[in-house]
């Protein structure tokens, strides 16, 4: 750790990981309900467990992004953070808002709008948190008078994340129009500006881990985010096919969605070339695993599996089936979960005062491989469920309930592989919270810097 104030990242990572664990609990509960009957539906029905599962995911990934930015920006701008105190207050407010939302959901306090269920006061708190965050980052960069391309892409991605949350505050009487703008937040986050965040973090990690030339890496980073937006902005249309919009969105959505894998494939090639050119010699092998894993898994989950059902004539039959769950799980994991875990494992030696070599523990590697295997299995199980569902329900015309009954074995597979995955998550948390602090080799002091602030 080069700057003392980078330590705020630890608090963010800790909160993010606790929520990651919570997400598992509600994921397992949700898939168990698919097997039915559900003895606890009176006080925790499926809609609530699923809502918490997805909302906690969004909150913890964003928490991870924030922690990663607080780690990365001081290093890139070569200065202490503008105000660590503000960063802690921000985390406090963010956590309170997140916990309030989750508890509220348990009692039916929801806006019932998929992925944007947060009640209005919570939404406002989120806006305030984002403003605190961007102010703190902005002031840090402004005072340092130094902005690298890597952090520029990261911070721009985070700023656009905040801006694109604003459509979520709007309400419309026309359901079609509500859906139209809901996707401005949801799609343009996950298939747009979050990819900027992922690209920025990936560039940073690759430069640090492989020692690849910064000029070259940053040059290609622009190409990757350029491709992301060429495909991603008009690719929003693949959510518009069947909601009551003009017909031209089908042609546009089909074409630009087909381009969406390019940016993800670009990232995988980017990582591969960096490694080929500069080697895999970095001692933090665990961070290398997560970094390369993210580049590969996002190409597969977000790129290829997304393309599997965005062509309009395919989507006509698969829309609203388990096929979407197949793509969603692997895409989110590969692109966003893995990049956050890569940042956590990369920063861990600095945060804990380890030698870099100390970070590749057997527990850490088990956590990695169990999550990989679990997610791969879940994706396959969702795919089998989705294909069967599409065929039986949409093509043969069996009733929804009969179809769900016939594909139960796939839900059982989701549960089994989901438990495997959760075990991996559990080991990651155990390593971070219990094992890592005990492996400290360096003193917990950092070189004082002239511009450090309280």
């Amino acid at each position, binding site marked *: 750790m080069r700057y003392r104030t980078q330590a705020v990242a630890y608090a963010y990572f800790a909160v993010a990981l606790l929520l990651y664990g919570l997400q598992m609990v509600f994921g397992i509960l949700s898939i168990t309900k698919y097997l039915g009957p559900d003895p606890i539906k009176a006080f925790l029905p499926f809609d609530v467990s699923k809502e918490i599962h997805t909302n906690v995911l969004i909150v913890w990934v964003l928490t991870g992004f924030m922690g990663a930015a607080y780690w990365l920006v001081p290093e890139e701008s070569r200065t202490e953070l503008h105000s660590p105190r503000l960063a802690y207050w921000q985390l406090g407010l963010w956590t309170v808002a997140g916990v309030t939302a989750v508890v509220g959901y348990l009692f039916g306090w929801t806006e019932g709008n998929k992925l944007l269920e947060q009640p209005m006061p919570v939404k406002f708190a989120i806006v305030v948190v984002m403003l605190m965050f961007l102010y703190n980052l902005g002031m840090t960069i402004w005072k340092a008078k130094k902005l690298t391309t890597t952090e520029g892409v990261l911070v721009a991605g985070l700023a656009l994340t905040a801006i694109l949350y604003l459509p979520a505050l709007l309400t419309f009487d026309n359901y079609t129009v509500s859906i*139209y703008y809901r996707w401005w937040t949801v799609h343009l986050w996950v298939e747009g500006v979050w990819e900027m965040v992922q690209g920025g973090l990936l560039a940073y990690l690759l430069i640090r881990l492989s020692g690849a030339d910064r000029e070259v890496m940053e040059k290609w980073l622009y190409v990757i985010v350029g491709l992301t937006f060429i495909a991603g902005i008009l690719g929003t249309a693949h959510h518009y096919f069947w909601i009551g919009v003009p017909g031209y969105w089908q042609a546009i959505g089909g074409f630009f969605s087909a381009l969406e894998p390019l940016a993800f494939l670009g990232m995988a090639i980017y990582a591969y070339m960096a490694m080929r050119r500069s080697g895999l010699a970095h001692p933090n092998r665990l961070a290398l695993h997560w970094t390369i894993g993210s580049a590969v898994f996002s190409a597969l989950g977000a790129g290829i599996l997304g393309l599997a059902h965005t062509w309009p004539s395919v989507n006509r039959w698969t829309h609203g089936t388990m096929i979407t769950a197949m793509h969603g799980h692997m895409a989110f994991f590969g692109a966003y979960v893995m990049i956050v875990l890569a940042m956590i494992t990369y920063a861990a030696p600095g945060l804990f005062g380890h030698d870099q070599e100390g970070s590749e523990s057997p527990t850490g590697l088990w956590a990695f491989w169990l999550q990989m295997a679990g997610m791969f299995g879940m994706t396959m199980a969702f795919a089998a469920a989705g294909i069967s569902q599409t065929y039986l329900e949409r093509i043969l015309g069996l009733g929804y309930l009969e179809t769900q009954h016939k594909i139960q074995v796939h839900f059982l597979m989701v549960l089994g592989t989901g438990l495997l995955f959760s075990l991996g998550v559990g080991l990651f948390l155990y390593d971070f919270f219990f094992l890592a602090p005990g492996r400290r080799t360096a003193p917990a002091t950092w070189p004082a810097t002239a511009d450090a602030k309280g």
Partner: protein
Amino acid sequence: MTKRQTRAFFLGSTGLFSLIFLALTIDSHRQFGALTHADQITPEVVAGKHVWHRKNCVNCHTLLGEGAYYAPDLTKIADQRGAPYLRSFLADPARFYNEERDRRLMPNLKLSPQEIDEVIAFLTWVGKIDNHGWPPRPILVSGAAIPGSNVGGAAPQAASDDPVAVGQALFGQSSPGCFACHSTSPGVNLVGPSLAGIAATAEARVKAPDYKGKATDAAGYIHESVMDPNAYLVPGATFSSNGQSLMPPGFGQSLQPAQVDALVAYLMTLK
């Protein structure tokens, strides 16, 4: 390629495609009114949308294919089931589905009668949105399209002008969608009673002392049941509620007299 050039590529392409997206958004707004029949968004429909959100329906069901995959899609439900059925179902879902048998059961949301009417109005409006013909085949809540419909292919077409063939095809088509609620297999009661052996059943029923309708023969009874489902209420928990049949009441208007005759001709063959 230099870094300056790739930056220009990023900024230029992002700007260009954002502008195209905004322009298409403006054009879409010009068309939303007609495509969604926005003039039919009454205060009741808006109130129903609020019920839809407040009760978190979208985190189990899909609507227009969007939502969660734990419960059936509701895009065309108002058309498929009709308001009387939905009113009765929403008041007490456990009357219609059994958690042991179906593995899932919608919780009773304790909606007021007014909220129920509002959400039905909302779903009725959604069903009319011009969404390019999605879903391509009806998504049934329960029951199979087999038997009684042409499984696996396009909607059945009559093989000839014979009224029985025309009626059989009509029975399996998504409008009127008879097959969605009535099976033709003995003992398989979906939402409505099984129509296996309906010709014989009808024959016996018109002679029964509790029959108060106007029909005098089996064909007349079937005709009357289509045109006026309330004329005789078949005993059964899910078939009627408060003295009113749960079968959609509008077939007398939506079907041509010749179509009703064809359906009757077909059903009269089920002995």
